[in-house]
């Protein structure tokens, strides 16, 4: 069932269009993350959903009713908000602040009922603020304050929870803790919408993402679908690649520096692991068009290759290379102007032996140090650190075109 229905909402603030005919729907029991660059309209969309901001056009429905028609008391029983700025300039205790979450249910002259006190206590327990309930809200840390405000929102006992950058002022572990808590609340039946800056965290915890850019929702749906390299790059006006987190399996987004002017020259990378992944990234960044392989599909470098859009020769793990794979390898090596060895890889002797000895070869330093790899058979080997990789590759290409190189580094 749709709980929050945003229908063609437009908002202008101080003459600037912040939301432009935005429509989206949040189903009951979902955790939706609003992502997008600064100024994309995430906070404005949340404020429109909470009813604190009247849209210039369009409507927002909460549980079937237009939020503009609800009294603040009614809407505060349906929607609780954790604002971005939780600083407070007065001396209420944490418990008093959490108690204010019961305000929507209190009659003007009645004190708190037993129910109120129980709900407040439960909320404080759940968010782990009970420990410092008696301390002044002004004296606790930013993270503790944020949790106190979250506890207040829980005490409101609403079906909908809106959070504006709930992780902004938290350290890494608290960020995960906070979002995991929201996730838990959603599992328990709440519906949550959160503006989240960190794309990886958003992807990891949200059921769905809505990507805002320039006041419009440019993509929405499950994280795997929304977090696509091109979409994200466009929205954030930069270059980003999407991979998969090794531990959580959620999509992860990595911003890359702007690509340098593309260079002529193909490079084939042989190697596995983080070193090969880093090598690929540097080559792409520098404007080369690398290929990599053979490499098992599950290797980190294969992940990186997919994310970077690099053509890959896939090998089955723990098996010797079959004829098809070897042919593919030969084709890539043949097309490449330079071959780069990076990262350790067991069983590469067979691969190395297939390469002509007179090819210019670049070895990323650690690859040489790592193992007894018979790079000695190559006539022209340059060793380099990752930082100097681009220069080394460019140099190797020049030497190939000249057909000779006087600055060869012998390899033991």
């Amino acid at each position, binding site marked *: 069932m749709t709980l929050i229905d945003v229908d063609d909402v437009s908002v202008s603030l101080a003459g600037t269009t912040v939301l432009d005919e935005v429509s989206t729907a949040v189903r009951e029991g979902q955790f939706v993350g609003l992502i997008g660059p600064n100024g994309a309209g995430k906070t404005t969309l949340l*404020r429109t959903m*909470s*009813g*604190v901001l009247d849209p210039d056009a369009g409507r927002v429905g909460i549980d079937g009713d237009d939020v503009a028609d609800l*009294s*603040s*008391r009614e*809407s*505060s*029983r349906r*929607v*609780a*908000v954790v*604002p971005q700025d939780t600083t*407070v*300039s*007065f*001396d*209420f*205790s944490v418990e*008093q*602040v959490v108690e*204010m*979450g019961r*305000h*929507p249910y*209190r009659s*003007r*002259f009645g*004190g*708190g009922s037993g129910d109120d006190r129980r709900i407040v206590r439960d909320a404080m327990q759940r968010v782990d603020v009970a420990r410092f309930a008696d301390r002044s809200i*002004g004296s606790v840390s930013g993270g503790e304050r944020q949790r106190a405000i979250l506890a*207040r929102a829980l005490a*409101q006992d609403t079906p909908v929870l809106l959070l504006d950058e709930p992780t902004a002022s938290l350290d890494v572990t608290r960020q995960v803790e906070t979002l995991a808590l929201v996730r838990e609340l959603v599992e328990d039946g709440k519906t949550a919408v959160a503006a989240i800056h960190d794309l990886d965290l958003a992807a990891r915890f949200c059921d769905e993402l809505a990507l805002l850019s320039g006041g419009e929702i440019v993509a929405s749906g499950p994280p795997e679908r929304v977090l696509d390299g091109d979409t994200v790059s466009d929205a954030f006006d930069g270059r980003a690649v999407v991979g998969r987190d090794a531990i959580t399996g959620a999509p992860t987004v990595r911003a890359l520096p702007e690509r340098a002017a593309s260079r002529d020259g193909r490079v084939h990378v042989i190697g596995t692991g983080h070193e090969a992944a880093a090598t690929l990234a540097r080559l792409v960044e520098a404007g080369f068009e690398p290929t990599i392989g053979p490499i098992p599909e599950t290797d980190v470098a294969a992940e990186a290759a997919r994310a970077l859009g690099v053509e890959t020769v896939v090998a089955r793990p723990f098996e010797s290379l079959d004829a098809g794979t070897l042919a593919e390898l030969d084709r890539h090596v043949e097309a490449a102007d330079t071959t780069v060895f990076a990262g350790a890889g067991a069983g590469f002797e067979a691969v190395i032996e297939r390469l002509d000895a007179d090819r210019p070869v670049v070895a990323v330093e650690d690859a040489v140090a790592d193992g007894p790899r018979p790079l000695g058979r190559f006539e022209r080997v340059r060793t380099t650190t990752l930082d100097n990789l681009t220069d080394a590759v460019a140099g190797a290409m020049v030497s190939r075109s000249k057909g000779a190189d006087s600055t060869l580094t012998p390899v033991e």
Partner: protein
Amino acid sequence: MRTGTRATAWSAALTGALVAAVVGCTTVGAVSLDSVAVAKAILDALPMLSFQVEATTRTIVVDLRLPRILLAAVVGFALGAAGTVMQGFFRNPMADPSIIGVSTGAAVGAVAVIAVPALAPPSLAVAGFTVASGLQLAAFTTALITAFGVYLIATEGGRTPVATLLLAGVAVQTFLGAVISYLMLHAGRSLERAVYWMMGHLHASSYDQVAFAGLSIAVGFPVLLAFASDLNVLLLGEEDAHHLGVPVERTKAILLAVSTLVTAAAVAVSGVIGFVGLIVPHVMRLIVGPDHRILLPTSALAGAVFLVLTDTVARARVEQMPVGIVTAALGAPFFLFLLRRREVTEL
């Protein structure tokens, strides 16, 4: 302890202090009286109670001293309550009951009537009793008009941003200051009276004045108390308050209107008594905390006690100093003391 219990306990204690202050201060004056005689005279004056009291004592207590002391209590109560509400409302520690021009507005009316007596409206009488003199009515009316004007100036599209209200209040007060100065230039022999009024005074008090200010409190204070929780929530910021179910603009309008009414009635009968509404809420906030359900009644009662005591100091002097001088002279250094100790850096 629960909030309700704490509020009741504190209020009871301060009410006791107020009664003690009233009785104690009534003994002070040109003729010293002992407190038992004073207590008897006061109780005798209450309906349905009867005590043996000397005629002179009765006259001194009931006719001479008590009206003034009760007026001090009522005005102090009003200023303490309104000051608390304004500081919470503006989320600004420098806010006081006059921040949107109530006192300056009252002064315009009062000085105008003093300078040009022909302007005075007829006094208000109900069932033969004078409830308010022409001067008081004029001051009361211009105070309300000023506050309402400031509110209208600061309101745009149904919203009244607190910062705009504050600035509009400052600008209007400056303008009215010019009006007052001009009126005083032409006050001639009434100048002294005008200056005296502006200093804030409780002399020549009558039960009529007590009734006038008391009535506004009887009407206004319960309303303010009813909004104490909303005021707490408003302290979190207006957006948060909206999210927590407070109809922000409506609540602000009610709080502003009622505290203006209470302040205007107090200022109309006593002139501009500074600092009570600023310092008393600060001190009480240090003692009982920021929760308005406790802070509001205690600040009101403490304001009453404070003004009864300071007016006694003013009264004890032979030349009858205006109490406004005493409250400012005592209040400002104390405020600076708190400021230096960093107690009053924030609400």
